[in-house]
């Protein structure tokens, strides 16, 4: 048993290093050029956003439409810090502070609103993210109002992106594998039964909200540091919907589904840049078609895992042996 576990762990580490090395190779050989690098950054940021929203909506079952609000808090916090301290240390402090601030707001907002269910919670979180946006517009002296912040120093590169994406996925995956994660899923499945089993439903809903907001804060911080320009309107209702689209498309309750959908949508959207007139029509059409044929999302609630490939490998080997 121990041997198998170790083998799985080794395979996982090899897979993670491989993913890093391949992209690093493509970047250094300039196959991923400056233009495609923007897509790469978008993919990574969207993965963090989608996986963390999946924790809230897909696994814990709390319908949130305010993820862009948490993202904006991370973006502004990190931007303000790195503009004053333009060093790597400043950048890391900015990401951390951005995440912590977003988590704090998540906690303050979550405590009263998570009593609400379904559509009511969605409206409350939507209102919350609008309030955050309007606060940023009106805090002229700090945030430069609707014009936004310019010339934010850029520290984001592939190694940093990788660290934060892998960190987010591991954090949320391990959380979900723990008994805390079981509690979250039980709340999604049946809140009353979960409470009757002795699960503190409020605690776990708020916990999911805080961790989701924390990761969204990281995503926002990375965004501001790469695109060196942010304004409140970037983090409006539509941004929240974009993230939700990735989560639903990948499958509510599937981390690998969120990753897959984030990659797919970014690639599709980059490819369609060459057809600007019909770009949005095609994009919407793809979403509609996928939702017709895969209403549960690309992966449903399943996960792509390394052990799955192992099983497939064994199956093939077995088939060959038979012949």
């Amino acid at each position: 048993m121990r041997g198998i576990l170790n083998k799985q762990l080794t395979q996982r580490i090899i897979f993670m290093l491989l993913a890093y090395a391949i992209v690093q190779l493509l970047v250094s050989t300039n196959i991923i050029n400056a233009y495609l690098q923007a897509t790469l950054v978008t993919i990574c940021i969207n993965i963090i956003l989608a996986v963390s929203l999946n924790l809230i909506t897909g696994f814990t079952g709390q319908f949130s439409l305010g993820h862009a609000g948490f993202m904006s808090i991370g973006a502004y916090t990190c931007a303000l810090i790195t503009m004053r301290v333009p060093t790597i240390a400043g950048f890391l402090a900015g990401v951390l502070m951005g995440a912590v601030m977003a988590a704090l707001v998540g906690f303050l907002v979550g405590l009263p609103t998570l009593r609400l269910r379904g559509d009511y919670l969605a409206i409350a979180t939507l209102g919350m993210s609008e309030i955050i946006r309007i606060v940023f517009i009106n805090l002229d002296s700090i945030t430069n109002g609707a014009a936004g912040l310019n010339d934010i120093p850029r520290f984001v590169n592939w190694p940093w992106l990788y660290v934060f994406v892998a960190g987010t996925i591991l954090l949320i995956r391990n959380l979900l594998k723990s008994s805390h994660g079981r509690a979250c899923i039980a709340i999604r499945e049946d809140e009353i039964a979960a409470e009757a089993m002795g699960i503190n439903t409020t605690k776990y809903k708020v916990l999911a909200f805080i961790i989701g907001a924390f990761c969204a804060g990281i995503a926002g911080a990375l965004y501001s540091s790469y695109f060196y320009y942010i304004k409140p309107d970037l983090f409006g209702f539509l941004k929240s919907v974009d993230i939700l689209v990735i989560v639903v498309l990948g499958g509510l309750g599937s981390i690998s589904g969120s990753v897959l959908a984030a990659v797919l949508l970014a690639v599709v959207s980059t490819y369609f840049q060459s057809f600007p007139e019909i770009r949005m029509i095609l994009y919407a059409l793809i979403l509609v078609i996928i939702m017709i044929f895969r209403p549960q999302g690309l992966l449903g609630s399943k996960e792509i895992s390394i052990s799955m490939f192992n099983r497939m490998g064994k199956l093939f080997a077995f088939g060959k042996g038979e012949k």
Partner: protein
Amino acid sequence: MLEINNLNVHFGVIHALKGISLTVNDGEIVTLIGANGAGKTTTLRTISGLKKPTSGDIILNGENITGMSAQQRVNKGISHAPEGRRVFPAMTVLENLEMGAYLRKDKPEIARDLKMVYDLFPVLSDRQKQPAGTLSGGEQQMLAIGRALMSRPKILLLDEPSMGLAPLLVQEIFNIIRGVNKAGTTVLLVEQNAMMALQIAHRAYVMETGSIVLHGTGEELLQSDQVKKAYLGG
């Protein structure tokens, strides 16, 4: 074991429980019967902490638990199998049963109770890897009872275990409830199937629109003209 004194519960302006009092002694099966909307489910939900009372006391083994949260009450030995089964549909049978032991840390004892539940309901053992949502109604009810037993309760609250089940299954479920009770768990049973409930109950309370109107042994109430007329069809 369990004592309820003068319990009042409101839903907004609606006075759902109007000062009810009842007692469940150690080792008993006590049933609460009555028509729809009499307040039976509300009584159970208030005992397990899912609903807060306006006034009154709930006392478990001499300790006043009225102000405690649902979690604390599970730890104190109250387990509630809620109305409508409410299994976790996307989780497997095994995961559902493990959720029942969520607050427990004693792994070897949990494994023993899991085996006990599988002995009680062999069909659950056959289906332990299957998502609970794919079970039949009767199997889901067995799972709901099994899950409630996994917290190793002192008192088991069962809300309409016979709902929507075929007569043969109802008989089986009631036999199992009797078995669970014989094995040492006190049971408070809410039922609409008054005939079956009164047959296995040591004592019974009859509720009508938020109040307890009648109380006696199961045998007495089966013979009572009032109960016969209202609930037993003759």
